[in-house]
């Protein structure tokens, strides 16, 4: 069983809340619980009472080009789910909060810093046999004066990644070892992860995202174990400028969360173009 969040040595423990905390705040008007999943059917099959859904594909992405929603889109989303700038949003979801962390990351592009992740995610809530409902809540629409999206601090773009590589700065590839080494999948007719080339960005170290999780209950590992993973094994330093990436930036937002909030790294960016951009781009260097 995981120790209490504040006993795990995290740099910013307040960005995590326990399932007990969420259970105690289900009717708190200043808290909005948000489910964000990899599986699109899960929310409707049952969710935490009062929780709204934020769907990555439909709610967070620009409907036409590959990019995130604009200021107006974010304001409309927040209005629809009844959130004001003062409210605390708590994300949870399936797959060890992978998509919850992705939604959290997108919210940070709009500086909604009153945001937390429910430790253990949906699986822990279910393990503890806490209530689920199929009733979809409706909240009064709010007016949310969203700022312009600011990509500068936590999002990396292709040319910035290339400069990062040339400067010898650290990258963390959070995909599976098979993806990292560019191993062919065993079915020849199957597309190679949506990319024409396999391998990884030169110099990137491989730390699969789920290594940060206790597999038995989906909670985050304590800080000393996370430091062993990233610092002892891969040589990262909290002062480093780090870029994380995966296939489309969703798994790497989980590792971004770990480095930034649990270990306190100040300069971590997520490269959401990730392998689907890098592995398809003409002329970019690849290592196997």
């Amino acid at each position, binding site marked *: 069983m995981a120790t209490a969040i504040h006993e795990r040595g995290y740099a910013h423990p307040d960005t995590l809340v326990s399932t007990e905390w969420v259970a105690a705040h289900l009717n708190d008007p200043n808290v909005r619980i948000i489910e964000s999943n990899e599986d*699109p*059917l899960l929310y409707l099959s049952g969710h935490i009472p009062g929780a709204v859904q934020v769907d990555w594909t439909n709610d967070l992405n620009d409907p036409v080009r590959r990019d995130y929603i604009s200021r107006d889109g974010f304001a409309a989303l927040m209005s629809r789910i009844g959130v004001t700038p003062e409210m605390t949003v708590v994300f949870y979801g399936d797959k060890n909060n992978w998509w919850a962390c992705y939604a959290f990351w997108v919210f940070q592009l709009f500086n909604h810093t009153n945001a937390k992740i429910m430790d253990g995610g949906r*699986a822990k809530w279910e393990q503890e046999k806490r209530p689920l409902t199929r009733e979809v809540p409706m909240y009064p629409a709010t007016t949310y004066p969203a700022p312009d999206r600011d990509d500068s601090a936590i999002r990396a773009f292709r040319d910035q990644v290339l400069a990062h590589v040339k400067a010898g700065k650290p990258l963390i590839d959070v995909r599976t070892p098979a993806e990292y080494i560019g191993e062919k*999948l065993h079915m020849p007719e199957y597309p190679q992860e949506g990319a024409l080339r396999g391998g990884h960005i030169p110099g990137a170290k491989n730390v699969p995202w789920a290594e940060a999780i206790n597999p038995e209950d989906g909670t985050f590992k304590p800080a000393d174990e996370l430091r062993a993973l990233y610092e002892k094994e891969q040589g990262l330093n909290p002062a480093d400028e780090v870029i994380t990436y995966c296939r489309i930036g969703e798994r790497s937002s989980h590792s971004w969360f770990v480095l930034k909030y649990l270990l306190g790294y100040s300069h971590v960016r997520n490269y959401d173009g990730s392998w689907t951009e890098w592995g398809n781009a003409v002329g970019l260097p690849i290592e196997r």
Partner: protein
Amino acid sequence: MVGYPKPLADVIADMASITDRRERQELLIETADRFASVRVPADVAQPPYSEANRAPACESEAYVFAVDQPDGTLRYYFDVLNPQGLSAMAMAVILAETLSGQPLEQVAQTPTDLVFNLFGREISMGKGAGLMGIIALVQAEAKRRLKAS
């Protein structure tokens, strides 16, 4: 051109008639509820399963099994190790119920993009790839039998 097996064509037509996304999702959840009926029986396979049976790119850890039938067709069974893998379970139920016992030539040519007919275009790339991986493995089993015959 080899068309869809009729049972699958019927399911696709039913889905196409549902324009409301939430209604379609509810139907898929009901479909996933029948997963126990297509879960691989112990006399066919037991965990830990062979990697050869694992659907590529499926984050829900879906496995596909094909059992030869006396009439030369295949009966398909599945397992989904992620208990929250509802979409994979729904996909498995649809494939087991509509492709088992169907001509191998048709099964082998089942287009993987039928995922979009069933789940809609708004499904995420990763999820779509995982579900297509399940279909691809079903196809591969049929192709393997055709090649051997």
